[in-house]
């Protein structure tokens, strides 16, 4: 046992570092010897060499992506935090905006990238898509954070005549900071993903997405890896900054003793008919409004009614239905399978990080790199390695589902109050029993929120894989329609994918309520 702290810190650092170093060495070796898929995985030195040759191209591409994702990140998060505050202070607004929130969340960015590129110009589509990507994660984290506060501290403020606003000001906002920061953390890669997807879908000379798309056909794995790693570094940097800030703040935010209050059951209230109607109508009304305000030509901008007309009443309706149904039967089964696997993996890792911190310390940096790698950058690389079959779709879906689920579940586990954790330990409980008795039940609401969060992301993963790699399903239909300028079909696929995502979300919500109700009854 090393006694002095400096040496112990070094040992800990080494324990974290050596698996990473070992992996990098293995990578170099595998690249040099062309072990993976006949050279699809280039060695690190090859990537570095290619990077050096391309050094003139990078700055402007990076700058473009950085500006778009940064602007989107700031705007999206500002709106999200403000909206979260509003929804908690005036719950009826949250219920009315519910349909819109779910629609924004479920919106596969890939499906609306072509639409945004058609209706907006310049950097705007990229910023909008990046902002859309961060909005829901941060809004949800804000709402959850504001609702999980120490109710006794709330009582204290109310005992001095403080109202809702005072409880919000003195207790809720500050105690929500870790949750909001964890939202920012997850949102950072989303912003980069959104910006790059918009670069994919629209024109524009500069941007890592443009660069990637342009290099896709050149069968130069080293350059694809270089672009992918650059995008990853941008996203990872954003993630790391907020992870660092939130780690510094968590110690000061956790209440010292157990707060007996359960999270408020507001969301379980049945919606009244007018609120429900408003909630469903709002996204469609906004859709119409945006088309009208931007004055989009009717040929390009389709209204909700246009889509219904195209799919059911027009001359092409039969053919359109057949194509859509065929795409759906290809997309849906694989989405469900990948989602289940990703969730199981996230839960196992979150639990194991509590049981065997050493393993997680070693594994997490690696997982972090693969996860902050924006999906559009990851997909071509996975295609290089795994080919264009089902395996690639499945892996992409798992990787998409896994990360947000892991962050949410781990966050829930980290928030278990100290006293509650120490009680079973005081009775000599093993780590596993302690986890089963306290940590898992205490984090259950967070785990369920994670289920809800990942369901629509799984569909996005499948669609990106289909667009870029397998040439099947909804993603491919979208890409084809884009190529044929089949605007009706573009809007139809976008609407269908949103509706499927919303359905997934609702199903996850029903399951969440069942689980919570059963736990409350125990």
């Amino acid at each position: 046992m090393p006694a002095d702290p400096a040496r112990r810190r070094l040992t800990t650092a080494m324990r974290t570092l050596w698996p990473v170093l070992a992996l990098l060495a293995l990578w170099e070796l595998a690249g040099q010897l062309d072990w993976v898929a006949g050279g699809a995985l280039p060695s690190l030195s090859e990537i570095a060499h290619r990077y050096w040759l391309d050094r003139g191209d990078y700055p402007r591409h990076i700058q473009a992506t950085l500006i778009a994702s940064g602007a989107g990140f700031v705007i999206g998060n500002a709106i999200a935090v403000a909206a979260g505050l509003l929804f908690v202070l005036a719950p009826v607004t949250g219920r009315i905006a519910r349909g819109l929130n779910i629609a924004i969340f479920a919106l596969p960015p890939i499906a609306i990238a072509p639409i945004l590129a058609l209706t907006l110009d310049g950097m705007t589509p990229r910023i909008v898509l990046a902002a859309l990507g961060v909005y829901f994660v941060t809004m949800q984290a804000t709402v959850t954070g504001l609702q999980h506060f120490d109710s006794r501290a709330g009582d204290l403020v109310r005992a001095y005549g403080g109202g809702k606003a005072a409880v919000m000001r003195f207790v809720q906002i500050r105690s929500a900071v870790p949750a909001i920061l964890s939202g920012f953390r997850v949102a950072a890669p989303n912003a980069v993903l959104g910006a790059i997807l918009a670069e994919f879908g629209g024109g524009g000379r500069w941007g890592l997405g443009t660069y990637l798309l342009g290099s896709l056909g050149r069968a130069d794995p080293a350059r694809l890896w270089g672009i992918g790693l650059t995008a990853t570094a941008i996203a990872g940097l954003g993630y790391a900054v907020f992870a660092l800030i939130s780690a510094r703040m968590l110690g000061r935010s956790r209440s010292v003793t157990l707060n007996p209050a359960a999270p408020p059951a507001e969301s379980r209230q049945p919606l009244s008919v007018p609120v429900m109607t408003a909630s469903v109508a709002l996204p469609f009304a906004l859709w119409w409004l945006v088309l009208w305000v931007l004055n989009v030509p009717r040929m390009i901008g389709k209204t909700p009614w246009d889509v219904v007309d195209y799919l059911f009443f027009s001359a092409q309706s039969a053919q359109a239905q057949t194509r859509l149904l065929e795409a759906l039967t290809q997309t849906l089964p694989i989405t469900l399978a990948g989602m289940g696997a990703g969730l199981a993996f996230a839960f196992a890792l979150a639990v194991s990080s509590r049981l065997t911190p050493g393993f997680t310390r070693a594994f997490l940096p690696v997982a972090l790199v693969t996860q902050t790698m924006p999906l559009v950058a990851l997909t071509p690389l996975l295609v290089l390695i795994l080919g264009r079959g089902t395996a690639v779709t499945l892996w992409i879906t798992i990787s998409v589902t896994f990360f947000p689920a892991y962050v949410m579940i781990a966050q829930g586990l980290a928030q278990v109050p100290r006293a509650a954790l120490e009680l079973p330990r005081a009775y000599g409980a093993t780590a596993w029993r302690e986890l089963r008795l306290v940590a898992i039940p205490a984090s259950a609401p967070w785990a369920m929120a994670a289920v809800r969060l990942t369901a629509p992301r799984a569909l996005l993963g499948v669609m990106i894989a289909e667009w870029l790699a397998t040439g099947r399903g909804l993603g491919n239909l979208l890409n084809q329609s884009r190529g044929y300028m089949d605007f009706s079909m573009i809007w139809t696929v976008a609407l269908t994918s949103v509706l499927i995502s919303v359905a997934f979300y609702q199903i996850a919500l029903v399951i969440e309520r069942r689980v919570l109700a059963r736990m409350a009854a125990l």
Partner: protein
Amino acid sequence: MTTPAGIALDHLSKTFRSRGKAVEALRDVSLDCPPGSFTALIGPSGCGKSTVLRTALGLEPLDSGAVRIGDRTPDKATRAGLTGVAFQDAALLPWRTVAQNVALPLEVLGRPVAPEAGRIRELIALVGLKGREAALPGELSGGMRQRVAIARALVTEPRVLFLDEPFGALDQILRRQMNIELQRIWAETGVTALLVTHGIDEAVFLADRVAVMQAAPGRIVEVVDVPFARPRTPALFADDAFHHLCDHIAGVLHGGADAG
């Protein structure tokens, strides 16, 4: 010294309903605490004694009955800064220092904090935490946190002090010390105090009157006058008459029969 205000609880009734079950927490609870008096409310767990206190602070709505603090409703009295409160859990905000936690009620009431800085320091010294003004709650022991909560309850110079088992989590020795401290603070400030507790000796040592409650439905079954002269000293804990009174209250708690 501020003018104390009395507390009048007038026929309070309250029933909790959850998942189809109804629990009658309070049935026709009446209690009058004259200005400057010290009243203890004692009873078994779940007898509704904390609910009495929460309704008196306006934290919990009543089914019927009324609470008056001085000549005001609870809402008006709390908003006017007449009341001070310490709960069973210190409920300190983990991101605020000791001094900032003590200042919280002033901020909630919208009063300026800066002119009170000296008094906040005095209060912290009064509860024996001199020199820990800048500590965070996470750095304090359970007893220290509870003492911060007492200081916080006094910061507004309240005329009525509500104490909900404020020493419930402390050990016996510390608890006795805090009882003596509390008696001193009460005598110095002349505040009207209502203490909810399940410690019989604590109630008898501190209070002028002990109201004994029983559960299901929560109700007051007897109000016992405590005759001992003030200031009371730790020697009282060894007094025969003290034990006799404690035994009597224990008897009332265990089913109404007079054990003495």
